[in-house]
């Protein structure tokens, strides 16, 4: 009896172990293994082919002496800050305005969120065309008689990052809107009644009562946007290809260029390790506070 139970228990577990084998293999080889290999390579002098020597932090020293890398870091910080801030403010405003019992709500929601369904390549090409000074908005405005009108963001190295932020905000603001709107719809009507009885102005109610309640949705949307901005490569390739010059270079592109075009594996992996560490430092506290700080939030 007991042995029968034991064997059944084992067979049961064997199946569960087997089922998780693909995941285990992927985690070990595709995630952890590749990560470790990338980090290892960053301490070698690998150029076109991987080498197995050890040169300490040479690649990192070279990396942070490379102006193109420093530019790409600066650009990344600029894009990330403005993208996150504008997406958050705009998305929140859109959600709050839609929540005021407006007509044609479905139309507004559709119009604000559809860009999120499209790829970054498409987004980049679209805005490249609209902002094209020769035939786009600038030319159109000049044709209308505003002969000094200037909107040459995409081709001007001082302003190209504005163009990138504009395109990314257009792509991502709807996400914040959709998530916050879902959150607003989940808020108890009694709460609204209470704020009205207390005579709290609407904007104060949103700012000090409602938005704090929506904190999980806000964090979720910011995390999603952050992931997309860290991975952002396609939009830059499609929209500016890093130019003019290196004015819209980003770390993801720097790494790809050095891996596949410039045959500089050591430098590229040093750069990707830098990204890895940065993301870890930012993500770890968020993950900790979200999942370990308070228990029982798991669905």
């Amino acid at each position, binding site marked *: 009896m007991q042995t029968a139970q034991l064997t059944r228990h084992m067979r049961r577990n064997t199946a569960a172990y087997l089922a998780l084998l693909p995941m285990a293999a992927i985690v070990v080889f595709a995630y952890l293994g590749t990560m470790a290999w990338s980090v290892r390579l960053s301490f070698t002098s690998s150029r076109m082919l991987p080498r197995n020597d050890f040169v300490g932090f040479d690649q990192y020293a070279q990396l942070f002496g490379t102006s193109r890398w420093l530019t790409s870091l600066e650009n990344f910080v600029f894009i990330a800050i403005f993208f996150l801030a504008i997406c958050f403010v705009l998305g929140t405003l859109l959600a709050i305005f839609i929540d005021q*019992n407006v007509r044609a709500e479905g139309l507004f929601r559709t119009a604000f969120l559809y860009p999120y369904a499209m790829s970054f390549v498409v987004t980049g090409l679209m805005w490249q065309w609209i902002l094209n000074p020769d035939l786009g908005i600038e030319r159109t405005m000049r044709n209308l008689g505003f002969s000094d009108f200037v909107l040459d963001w995409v081709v001007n190295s001082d302003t190209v990052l504005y163009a990138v932020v504009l395109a990314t905000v257009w792509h991502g603001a709807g996400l914040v809107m959709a998530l916050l709107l879902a959150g607003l719809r989940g808020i108890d009507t009694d709460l609204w009644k209470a704020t009205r009885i207390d005579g709290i102005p609407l904007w104060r109610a949103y700012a000090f009562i409602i938005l704090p309640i929506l904190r999980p949705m806000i964090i979720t949307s910011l995390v999603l946007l952050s992931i997309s901005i860290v991975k952002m490569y396609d939009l830059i390739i499609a929209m500016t290809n890093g130019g003019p010059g290196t004015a819209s270079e980003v770390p993801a592109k720097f790494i790809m260029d050095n891996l596949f075009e410039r045959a500089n594996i050591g430098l590229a992996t040093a750069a990707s390790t830098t990204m890895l560490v940065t993301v870890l430092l930012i993500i770890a506290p968020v993950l900790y506070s979200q999942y370990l700080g308070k228990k029982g939030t798991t669905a």
Partner: protein
Amino acid sequence: MSVAEANAPALRRPVTSQQRWGRIGIYAFLGVMTVFFLLPLYVMIVTSLKTMDEIRLGQIFALPVQPTLEAWATAWSSACTGLDCTGLRIGFWNSVQILIPSVILSILLGALNGYALSFWKVRGANLLFACLLLGAFMPYQVFIYPLVRFYAQAGIYGSLPGIVLTHVIFGMPVMTLLFRNYYSGLPTELFKAARVDGAGFWAIFFTIILPMSVPITIVAVIMQVTAIWNDFLLGLVFAGRENLPMTVQLNNIVNTTTGERAYNVNMAATILTSLVPLAVYLGSGRWFVRGIASGAVKG
């Protein structure tokens, strides 16, 4: 919809003039924003219907005088991507070939992982899962080079199986999380009853869990179809010249042409490339929102 509307803050006090202006303000803001979000799509559509002569006039917002679908035909069947002038249709079919197995495999594995993680006690599984989730936050650039080497060793670099495997690998964190969260919300009594009846790991999975997974599978399909269709970087690196997805072909058509750019063809190509995700978005309605909401890392 009706429930959501009932929960919205219904501000049904007597309408003062201040409130009337408030309503006007709300619609004005939403209207301006709708224009901002829809404008690029409008510009793309009208541009794709114009002739180059008309585009050269520099009136990006004007309706086409003589609408023609010529640019669409060119984009589909004869636009040049580098040396080949066979249009986007090749890329379209490549994307379909990549999409179908990738979506099916990644969802099946995600469901299996989610099931094994939430109902069976497998030692070390949660640690594996934590590593997997952490991987979801990392920029792809950290994994790409070692994976290319692995694939080359295995002989699948630049092949259809190679790119499918890549999508399965990078889709796994979100898919596993999605199904795990969904399954942890199912009543465990069902599962326990099945175990008392002597059903094993696979029997429970196929006869009880899978039939109950329809709603979450719809969400998973929406997420994976849009994500895989919109992918650029992985297709560029892993698919190989023969299997380049539509997004990569699109970028080649637009950004590598020499001589005058055929903006009408470019815009037609851009719209063609976004038709699949747009159709998914418009066709799935609020399932799409649920998809991005539950795709968030919150478990």
